[in-house]
């Protein structure tokens, strides 16, 4: 059965420094979710393999954005529990026909390509370390949020109805905006501006997109307002024509 449009799963464990990413992803989902979307967020200890598999089977989401520690071949979630192994076909099949974004290290080396080979339609991940800054508490400052604001722009764009290719392009633009903020923008005199700019530069350089760019997990959320707007002049024209015909007949 094909995965369901407008259905999203977000996996947000908060242990082992993962709260630095999870707090940002949660805020982004809250700020960008659209009416009609079926969204599941598994947070903290709920971000475990059993619950993830339960949601995948029950809700069959088209798009999954997950945070977790990773390596070339393994992606883990809460309590470092492995969810996906590059050599385990039954685990890879969990992501069949889905858009999968892994905020993790190194999975683009082997796991990402293995997912695509196993039927994942689009994959986003990193082929080296994904770095972040921990100088402040999780979620409290732009400095600790910045790497994740760039990473999760992909999710923002998908929630707003864009295709995977458009969302990827938006993500790269967001990386450049964040780098500019710390290099020449308002953040340039922050005590750790140069390290944060370096972190963003490294993450951008190792970010990897594989698979199809034409998939829109939530097509109507972005397209509907544009369709309504373009339809308004037509409705007005038809009404005006009708009124003119009515007046002509009466005359």
């Amino acid at each position: 059965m094909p995965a369901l449009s407008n259905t999203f799963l977000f996996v947000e464990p908060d242990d082992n420094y993962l709260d630095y990413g999870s707090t940002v992803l949660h805020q982004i989902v809250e700020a960008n979710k659209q009416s009609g979307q079926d969204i599941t967020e598994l947070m903290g200890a709920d971000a475990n393999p059993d619950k993830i598999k339960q949601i995948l089977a029950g809700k069959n989401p088209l798009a999954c954005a997950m945070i977790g520690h990773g390596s070339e071949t393994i992606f883990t979630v809460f309590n470092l529990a492995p969810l996906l192994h590059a050599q385990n076909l039954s685990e890879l099949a969990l992501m069949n026909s889905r858009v999968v974004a892994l905020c993790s290290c190194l999975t683009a080396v082997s796991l990402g390509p293995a997912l695509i080979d196993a039927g994942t339609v689009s994959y986003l991940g990193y082929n080296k370390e994904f770095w972040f800054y921990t100088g402040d508490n999780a979620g409290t400052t732009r400095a600790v949020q910045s790497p994740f604001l760039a990473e999760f722009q992909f999710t923002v764009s998908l929630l707003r109805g864009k295709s995977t290719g458009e969302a990827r392009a938006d993500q790269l633009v967001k990386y450049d905006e964040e780098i500019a903020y710390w290099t020449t923008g308002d953040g340039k005199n922050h005590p750790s501006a140069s390290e944060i700019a370096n972190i963003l530069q490294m993450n951008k350089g190792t970010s990897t997109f594989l698979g199809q760019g034409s998939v829109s997990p939530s097509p109507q959320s972005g397209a509907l307002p544009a369709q309504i707007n373009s339809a308004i002049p037509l409705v007005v024209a038809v009404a005006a024509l009708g009124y003119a015909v009515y007046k002509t007949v009466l005359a």
Partner: protein
Amino acid sequence: MSKELVNQWYNKISNVERNLPLLLVDGYAYTPQMAYDEVNNGSALGAKLQALIESGRFGTSSLEEVAIAKVRVRQILQSKPQDKILFATMSNKTFTPAQLLAEIESGTQIGEQWVQSEISRMTALVRVR
């Protein structure tokens, strides 16, 4: 080209960056602050530094790029609290500035990733307009 371009460039970069070595002329590294002063003094050295800035280069071979990048990263990291965890990765690794500096000095893969990123950032910095 005029020295206004150099002044505009200098004004756009951060206070910290102004005092990190960036531009290499005749085997010596100069900070943006030094370049700004030399250019505004109208010295011969200032003319060479201005030419580098205008062309968007920092005037080094790849070996020299690595050397300057390491000096810059070392200077930055040594100015931080040495025992506070400031950096982490999504492979469950954490680093204090001292630990990260050790990776860079030892030439590990992680250290190399930071040095190469610093070189990219130096290129971007000298091209700020």
